[in-house]
């Protein structure tokens, strides 16, 4: 079935199967920043934006993306890089496999929460798992990024 969507500000028409998930479709079209790691919609690695809201692309049928605006980290290199610079200056990307999805969530959080507290930051990002860092370095990077103490 053909869908038409906007991917990183570009309108595309893609053939997708009825049972295909968006994460797989995105990867098959070369958006390789989108990672999958859990198969149960709970790790956050496949996070992309749909119409400006972060969502798990492993759990959305590609058909659902028809007429939508999808953004991956490839879609806003400047904003993502600004945070990625801070993250990697902390050493908090470690293996990096969870970083693109995590960064997508952090950027969404920046849009949604005004002056979040530490507790609010942690709560917002709970769905982004990381096995390498123990989360402390990520929190340090976010605080620097948001300019909160």
């Amino acid at each position, binding site marked *: 079935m053909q869908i038409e969507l906007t991917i990183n500000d570009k309108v595309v028409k893609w053939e997708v199967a009825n049972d295909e998930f968006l994460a797989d479709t995105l990867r098959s079209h070369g958006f390789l*920043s989108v990672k999958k790691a859990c198969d149960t919609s709970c790790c956050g690695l496949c996070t992309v934006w749909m119409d400006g809201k972060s969502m798990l692309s492993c759990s959305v049928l590609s058909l659902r993306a028809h007429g939508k605006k999808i953004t991956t980290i490839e879609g806003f290199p400047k904003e993502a890089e600004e945070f990625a610079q801070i993250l990697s*200056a902390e050493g*908090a990307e470690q293996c990096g*496999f969870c970083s693109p999805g995590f960064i997508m969530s952090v950027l969404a959080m920046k849009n949604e929460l005004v002056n979040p507290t530490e507790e609010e930051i942690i709560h917002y990002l709970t769905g982004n798992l990381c096995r390498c860092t*123990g989360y402390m370095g990520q929190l340090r990077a976010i605080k620097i990024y948001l300019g909160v103490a």
Partner: protein
Amino acid sequence: MENVGQSIRKIDGMAIAMGKPVYTEDLAMPNALVVKILRSPHAFAKITSIDISKAESLEGVQCVLTFKDVPNARFTLAGQSYPEPSPYDRLILDQIVRYIGDEVAIIAAVDEKTALLAMKRIKVEYEVMEPVLDFEQAIGHPSVVHPEEDLSCNFEIGLQKENNITSSSHEEVGDVDEEFKRCAVVVEDVYYPQAQAHTMMETYRAFTYLDHAGRLIVVSSTQVPFHIKRQLARALQIPASKIRVIKPRIGGGFGGKQTGAGDVFAGLVTLKTGKPAMIIYDRKETFSATTSRHAMRLKVKLGADQEGFIRAIDMQVLSDTGAYGEHAPTVLSCVGHYTLPLYNKTRAVRFDGKAVYTNKMPAGAFRGYGATQGTFALESTVNRLAEQLKMDPTEIRLKNISKVGETFLTGQGVMLGSSTLDRCIAKGKELIGWEEKFPRRVVSYNKVRAVGMAITMQGSGIANIGTASAEIRLNDDGNFTLLTGATDMGTGCDTILSQMAAEILEVPMEKIIVHAGDTDTSPYDPGSYASSTTYVAGGAVVKAAEELKMKILAQSAAILGVGPQDVEFDGLAVRTLSGDQEISFAKLAELTILGTGKLQLVGYATQGCEVSPPPYIAGFAEVEVDQETGKVDLIDYVAVIDCGTVINPNLARIQAEGGIAQGIGMALYEQVRYDEIGKMATNSFMQYKIPSRKDVGKVRIAFEESYEPTGPFGAKSIGEVVANTPPPAISHAIYNAVGVRENHLPITPEKVFLGMQKL
């Protein structure tokens, strides 16, 4: 120092954070066959018939392979230096299946859907046998997991296959029983650290193809490219010269990727079909058909005199290695090797252990490698001893720990070269607020806060076994290439190794190109495990850089027409001491490589150490326990670390924070569980709970640097030691809070609640 000791960002940091296509799956050819594995539904069974005709005939299926199609050579998936201590006890596919998840057939098809459809069309009949599920019942069980005649070992490991004993380990110095009789206080307890899953975010994966020379190229998410090469050569029965293993960026390993996984299946498909093949383990397979930490039972007995000097230690270990013996002998012996040397006022020490086969998923290497289990048991017993002696737990450590220049009973005379463990303990006490908080404080009508502590050590590389080589060359353009076999799996070793090279060569890091983890081009390195990379590979890099520096000086001096003693080196150029002549690296490169010199300058070194100097940590936990529900919240965790010189403080701190978080998971949340037929009940993140960012409280790291005389720039290891303190420290804090001593990990609210009912 310009480079060493600086928090330099990882050289691959931006690329991986921004999602650039640099991991195994990203690099695979789009036409690669998809490889899937049909797995056993029985814990122990013999395949009596297997009909693949309906699967093979499906359009798009390239091959279906069964035990009839594989070489008859038993091998081990353990990635260890040759001769591997792990028994050669598995075939690529076997007629006997030994756990639920064991491989039955390999399917390769043009896409995943076809492969999965073909899998459903394979008809297998089994003769089901009685499995060995309880590791404490394995010895003497009527079922024998590995009766086969052709199982072999490279050397004696104490295997008794008729008794399901994979390996045995015994060490004894002094008369332990006599010494206990002389002790004023003797304490004893039994501990059950659980099987833990690595859960690296990138699951196991590899893709394989044949190159222009017909060689098998294996791009694998592995910590051990050279070991995978040797393993594949044996398993596939082809010469090692026909195999090249390449490690791209890795999405975490934690020891899991020190054991082979899908490489052999994809490799076999490529050899059979001549086509590229890709295997990706899904999360369920990663949980239930790879490896976990060894579950163990440890009995620890400690004796001390009136003054609190620990005089006798007895440790008896039973380790569950599951269906295959990957890392069984070495994890077992490391339980003792990485715990007993902590305390050296002993007069008698005994360690006795057995690893046993069961019909469950194999155990394997996991960050900490036996030290984690041993530390939980020993340190918990030391905390018990301190209570009996009415001593502060920190004081009993300070009184008993090994100090610089000292030896320990089982250490065969090796002297401790560096330690600031005493300072780590003091600093940790201060940071956690031990004096005010020990042992407990009531904070509300139902909540109590308490603190606990533990210390730990690990090794740095494997003494007399681990070696690493490194090569650095001056390129034609005046830049340098560092070749190493060390395998960065997110840890940052490509970065810290080039920091070390840059420091010696006095050049900016940008001038050094790192090429690592490729068995065709890298000098030999066993891979990143056993806390080796900073210490062993780092040592090789330092030596290679020093050699190159000498050659640069000598060659430059010759070109300038002066003696080598008359020149100096500043990273950009070589100058005469008088300052009137100089030659830049670029010019030197031009003359030596392109011009009349005809000698490309290369520094090369192999490093192997006779010692494995221990890094140390003092870990302190503060918990809050709800007395009505048994719920434990970790409030604060302080780890003070002696890893020698810290090469890159930010990367070392992240390693530590991440390791502590894994230890917190082991202490409180994580457990690989099986149901009554031996099926894994925790095969997704929905059942197997790793800590989220809400579950780790606050983790604080501090360093108390020592200088290890045998280490590069005085460095020791950090990768593994960080996982060890949370189970005993948190367990201690919970005991101090509510009086519940829970020796079965993880310490869940249910266990704490039920424990409180029994008080």
